[in-house]
């Protein structure tokens, strides 16, 4: 059981939970995720780690209510517990000094797992430009935290209610045109990562994406999370969650993510 010690409502459908998990807090690195289960009949679902506090022994999760399980988790209050939390899972982000700017693009709740990556790239001595994108200003999360660790922050909204009006790719194209970009990291909805990958491919810029597929065990056992990367079958839980975005078959991935839509 992992007790919730802090809760913040980011928007109608998005909450931030600070959860007790001392060993996970100690072991986690940027890029890792956890599997959680809520209730005795609860499903195992993957969630990304937005932050951790080793001293207090907590991890921070940002959860978007998109179905039965996430609705249950979003309804938990301070003092309630997640039935299970296991991790950190997956491979950590390859952080290091890059020869040029690192551009971090976050869409929707994808900003949450992006934050520790932004922080780590900055701490490794890189120039970091962050681009946050959402449908409207209400859905932009963690803006102040991202700003703190970025040399430049660009906010894009579909309706122009915050930052500039347009898609993440509009902001990204401007940065790429400015030159000196060494790497792009994109985390968000599959469709957003797909278009970021298409754009950076034009520019020949290495691009990493982090995939949030359907999982059951999260340790390589079931294969529900399999994706096609460069023509090879890879498991997001143990081979990922980060992959070369130029190699990922996003169309197949989006199709597979609809497997249980009819049963939601």
């Amino acid at each position: 059981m992992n007790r919730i010690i802090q809760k913040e409502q980011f928007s109608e459908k998005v909450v931030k939970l600070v959860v007790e998990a001392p060993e996970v807090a100690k072991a986690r690195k940027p890029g890792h995720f956890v599997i959680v289960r809520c209730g005795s009949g609860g499903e195992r679902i993957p969630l990304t780690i937005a932050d951790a506090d080793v001293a207090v022994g907590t991890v921070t999760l940002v959860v978007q209510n998109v179905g039965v399980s996430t609705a249950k988790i979003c309804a938990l209050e301070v003092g309630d517990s997640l039935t299970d939390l296991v991790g950190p899972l997956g491979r950590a982000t390859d952080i290091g000094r890059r020869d040029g700017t690192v551009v971090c693009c976050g869409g929707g709740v994808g900003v949450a797992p992006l934050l520790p990556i932004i922080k780590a790239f900055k701490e490794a001595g890189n120039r970091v430009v962050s681009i946050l994108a959402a449908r409207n200003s209400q859905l932009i999360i963690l803006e102040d935290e991202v700003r703190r660790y970025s040399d430049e922050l660009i906010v894009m909204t579909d309706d122009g209610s915050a930052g500039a009006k347009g898609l993440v790719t509009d902001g990204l194209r401007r940065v790429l045109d400015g030159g000196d970009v060494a790497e792009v990291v994109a985390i968000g909805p599959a469709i957003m990562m797909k278009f970021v990958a298409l754009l950076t491919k034009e520019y020949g810029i290495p691009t990493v994406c982090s995939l949030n597929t359907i999982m059951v065990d999260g340790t390589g056992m079931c294969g529900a999370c399999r994706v096609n990367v460069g023509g090879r079958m890879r498991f997001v839980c143990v081979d990922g969650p980060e992959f070369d975005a130029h190699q990922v078959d996003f169309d197949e991935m989006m199709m597979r993510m609809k497997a249980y839509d009819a049963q939601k």
Partner: protein
Amino acid sequence: MEQNDTVGGRDSAWREQLRGAMPAKERTAIPRVEMPQLDGAYRVTCNEEVNQGLRPEMAVTEASRCLDCPNPTCVEGCPVGIDIPGFIKNIQRGNIAGAYAVLRRTSALPAVCGRVCPQERQCESRCIYNKMKKAPVAIGYLERFAADSAREAGVPAGEMPQSNGKKVAVVGSGPCALSFAGDMAARGFEVDVFEALHEIGGVLKYGIPEFRLPNSVVDAELDGLRAAGVRFHTDTVVGKTLSYERLLEMGFDGLFVASGAGLPRFMGIPGENLIGVMSSNEYLTRINLMGAGRPGSDTPVPAARRVAVVGGGNTAMDSVRTARRMGAEKAFIVYRRGEEEMPARVEEIHHAKEEGVEFMTLANPVEYVGDKTGRVTAMRVQRMELDEPDASGRRSPVPVDGAIDTIEVDLVIVSVGVSPNPLVPDSIEGLEVTSRGTLAVDENLRTSLPLVYAGGDIVRGGATVILAMGDGRKAAASMAESLLK
């Protein structure tokens, strides 16, 4: 773990008396017992255990068939060397506690082994009755009878031994890990078992279905281990949640890796990533561990009418029989060799047939076809014929030119084996891995790190419950010897 009077060796007076009580000719004339089982039509409507277990009088009669051979070859056929005549003769004289004590000397999980071991290829295949062209003694049924009766009678599984002051960690909680844990606890080690999932039991919980191995049976065996002092920790991935260094920091003197085989294999054919094509691990985990399809479970599973299961092993049988219970009108096995060559236990194949499962042998899928939403609707199957025996001793299948059929399906379960899970090997520095991805170990099951031993599928790549348990026992013996030096 020494023998005591209540159990008795072959030389005990009561054993001699039993041997003399009935002439061999009379014993061998008794027909082999038949396991009472639920009717096939009824059992596909529920998840109840198919084999109902022997009644006491049946067990005693069957036990009296055993000739109590001076050199029992059945024992040589058992990977953990259970004293088979020893427990059987205790059943015959009505001493359940004695029979159970004999089993517990070599097996941490007798109620499990009595149900899932391939006895026809192990102990029973070596029974003297085979030489007489008669059906072997039903050793598996009797093992189950002894373990179940002892549990129902409340015979204690064991007690907390005197601590020897050493502490060991176990990675995984499947049969190999549990057998290691039981043996180490009996030797006085403090044992902590770390399981990645939210339930203890590994493949016994997520893999083997309720109708073949009820969870209550597994839980009772776990309670026995708890009583012996074994501590269980769920939601803990060694190498991830707790690093090897962290375990040493926590005071563990040794580590045993029994993390299982892990990654399901796929065939690499077109359409394998369509919705409705999944591994047997995924299908069985959703249903057995997560309770998909039962009220109160949030985990979904596809509702399917026509289900194909690719493979011929026990996991394939578990999957196809589960599909029938989940409401499939047609559930069938697709296997590239013949039925003779299937690695599944003979009993599972019989049970599957009784439950209306169809067998399409000498057939190999070559492609899956989907609709515009990406859901599988059909499979293309290449007909095969058998050629000369291959390296495995089985006749190898070769395609029949131009013989490809298209079969309508709405769920395909791929059950063609597993590869070693890289999770643990990758996250403990200095652990040597073989070219197959399994952990490299010496003859004592010690890895390249002196304090780390390994066994079961992470070493073997995919085997049976009992072979995994044999590894657990062997590793316990060698680790204990090295740590107590």
